[in-house]
């Protein structure tokens, strides 16, 4: 088991290096750098000398390979430098946004798990009955309808129902406070985007649970369990569920990592200042330092999530644990 974990940790290093390499060089393929955009982006004339001065200040005039090594050293020493656009430290810019995105990602993933596993299981047990059709329609609707639309529905729904029940409309708070400062206020703001995205991302996991469960229910060992006279609920919970969770864990892991940087539109609808918005802004302004840092953060989340998924695998399946 410890060897397994150690192997997984060592495997993270080449992945991170590859990601750093790709993001660094791909970013620089986009024409125009942050200095050109800032000084001449609005169509005004800019003095080439001034642009050069700016590039020199940010180190953009140095050979690519030197810049790349600076970037690598920055990653290893956890010194990501300053944003090229605002000039503020990257850690400062990311700070609260990372916290907020992480919290939403965790809450949305939990929502998604609580929707996907029970519904997928029921749908498989009741295959081809009306229950199965209802669950499948519900989860297809989750994929088909964009989450910002749920967002709008939820916000309108809260306004309308609080209006009719309490006489005056109630709005979730608009400004973010960390959960340890005011948990109630924090949750009453973030629960809604978490529900909207959690529902949306539960769809794939629900279908995955259903198909994995259907497959497992046809296995010989399920027949053995039935032949022992066990209760159906024991057969499902003890014999089938653990076997069918392997592919579901993978899907949920990938979704969690995606939620960390990919909630651009949902953040807009709920007026949240998360990583997604920062990501888009930094790409738009060719802020290499910020974009690179953000990509590396998301990659690290991906790698770490995959690591957790691998650990879960080993926990679920003794054949991996003892291999």
């Amino acid at each position, binding site marked *: 088991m410890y060897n397994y974990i150690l192997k997984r940790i060592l495997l993270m290093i080449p992945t991170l290096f590859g990601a750093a390499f790709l993001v660094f060089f791909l970013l620089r393929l986009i024409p125009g750098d942050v200095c050109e955009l800032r000084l001449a982006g609005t169509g005004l004339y800019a003095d080439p000398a001034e642009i050069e001065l700016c590039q020199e200040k940010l180190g953009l005039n140095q050979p690519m390979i030197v810049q790349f090594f600076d970037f690598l050293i920055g990653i290893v020493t956890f010194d990501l430098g300053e944003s090229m656009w605002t000039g503020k430290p990257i850690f400062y810019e990311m700070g609260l946004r990372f916290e907020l995105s992480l919290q939403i990602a965790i809450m949305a993933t939990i929502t998604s798990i609580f929707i996907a596993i029970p519904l997928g299981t029921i749908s498989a047990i009741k295959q081809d009955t009306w229950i199965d059709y209802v669950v499948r329609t519900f989860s297809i609707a989750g994929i088909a309808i964009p989450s910002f639309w749920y967002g709008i529905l939820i916000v309108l729904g809260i306004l309308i129902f609080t209006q009719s029940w309490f006489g005056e409309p109630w709005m979730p708070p608009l400004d973010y406070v960390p959960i340890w400062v005011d948990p109630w206020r924090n949750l009453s703001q973030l629960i809604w985007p978490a529900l909207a995205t959690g529902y949306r991302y539960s769809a794939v996991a629900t279908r995955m649970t259903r198909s994995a469960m259907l497959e497992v229910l046809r296995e*010989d*060992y399920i*027949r*053995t369990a039935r032949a022992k006279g066990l209760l159906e609920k024991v057969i499902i919970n003890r014999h089938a569920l653990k076997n069918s969770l392997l592919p579901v864990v993978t899907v949920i892991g990938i979704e969690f990592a995606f939620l960390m940087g990919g909630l651009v539109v949902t953040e807009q609808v709920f007026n949240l200042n998360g990583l997604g918005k920062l990501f888009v802004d930094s790409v738009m302004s060719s802020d290499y330092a910020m974009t690179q840092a953000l990509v590396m953060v998301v990659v690290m989340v991906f790698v770490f999530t995959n690591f957790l998924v691998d650990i879960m695998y080993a926990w679920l399946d003794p054949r991996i644990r003892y291999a």
Partner: protein
Amino acid sequence: MAKLLEIQDLQTLFYTSAGTVKAVDEISYDVEEGETVAIVGESGCGKSVSALSILRLIANPPGEITGGKINFMGQDLLQLSDREIREIRGRDISMIFQEPMTSLNPVLTIGVQLTEAMEFHLGIDTEEAENRAVKWLEMVGISEPRRRLKQYPHHFSGGMRQRVMIAMALCCEPKLIIADEPTTALDVTIQAQILELMKDLSSRLGVALIVITHNLGVVARYADRVNVMYAGKIIESGTAHDIYHKPSHPYTLGLLHSVPRLDQPRKERLKPIDGQPPDLTKLDNGCSFRPRCSFLIDKCENHYPALEQVASGHITACWEREKLIQEHR
């Protein structure tokens, strides 16, 4: 001896897109207490389905038990509620399956899989169930059983897993064990060990056995009575001695000729049965074996032969049984 199980006119159908498959077509046989009964036939003749039907383990859909009676200790298993049949499964009648590699749950320890049925059926606590599990593992010849309880199926070889399956089948001390091709997936040397173990334990504990097999060697050695199945029907039934030495159906004869005999000098080459088993969705009123039969007469085209007695306790379904018996004795 008293009758333990009486199967009467059992019929199991599968509704598939290709048509209705008569997997088991009105078969009847008895099992007496402590007796070993073999069901023999080619792949796809309905022998496994007939076994699974006894405990109502046929997946519905696509399968359905559409008729007959299965009397076991004074009650018709087909009339029981889901709860009542669950109390029979694993308690009074247990099963051993063909594939020991896939019949045990890969993510649960042997201990859990052994004790859960005892806890459920016998109402004993985990500790007591584990003690009994250790005893049963010892009895099926697994060394260091206490340590083995914490291991997973992938730690065991095929033969060892089948021993665990046997321990699982025995652990609630059932009256009847149905073994569905228990040795097909094992090496030949292991096959003999497993059969010996089953025979030994069943006679020691007085458990009746239904052994489903296509291996006539198994039949000769271990069974008291033999039912030969073809295309969903029993076509011959008798003692192992009758079937082996006085076969009275062309199909049984064909089966015997297609098995290597070690107890007789090798005079001739093996003779396989020509042709393929029939499509079970397209059976007509005639004898289902007639396309492959060398005793074919006109009557076989339109009339399925009834099971008739050829000797005491020996029945066969063939119009030409007299001719066959004369030619082959």
